[in-house]
């Protein structure tokens, strides 16, 4: 007897729904993180570094290689 594909259609539909949800969430996270993959497992040290990055660049995922910080960095928050 051939494979009953009609029975597998609901599985396919449900899998597609999960995929769409997962992709949608990942995409939103991607755009929220300055078009970079999101950070996970962020501990207190990483949080403190990201806060410092925000003070230096304006965004928690912004990066810069300037050796000397801008003058505002001394007093901003």
């Amino acid at each position: 007897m051939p494979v009953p594909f009609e029975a597998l259609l609901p599985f396919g539909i449900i899998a597609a729904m999960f995929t769409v949800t997962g992709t949608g969430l990942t995409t939103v996270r991607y755009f929220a993180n300055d078009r970079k993959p999101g950070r996970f497992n962020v501990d207190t040290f990483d949080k403190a570094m990201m806060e410092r990055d925000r003070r230096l660049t304006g965004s928690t995922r912004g990066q810069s290689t300037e050796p000397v910080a801008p003058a505002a960095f001394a007093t901003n928050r």
Partner: protein
Amino acid sequence: MATHLSSGFTKTEFVDNTPLPENIPKVDEVGATSAPLKSASFFIGQYCKAYNEDFMLCKAENNDPEHCLKEGRKVTRCAIDLITKLRENCGKEFDAHWQCLENHNQELYACRKPERTFNTCVFEKLGLEKKIPGTPEGFEQIHNKENPVIRNQFK
């Protein structure tokens, strides 16, 4: 994070009304953010070893911030110096490595290829070599290992 602001936007330039005393020399802060710093971390550790150790020993004596300002200034200036040198000499490899780190949750194991090119460039131009202290005898450095076994560290 931010403390409560008593006023809204300011129309004048911000003036610090509690500045440091005049007798304390001014030092520029390091402007590099987390990913470039992580990328350069082992080189900063090697290049600035003397100043860093001075600072840590000074802090171990007395944890008061005022006690170790001088050593702290030296640490900052050394780091600024090295970052300037890295940008000048190995700028492209440096950028490649920290941008890879940014795309991989700042995990070093995920970016060994750009790291290798960066390390060879730094070794050629600046003579600094990344060594992980505390590697047991007979084990090669983890970043040089071909085909390492990467698995969940929480198992």
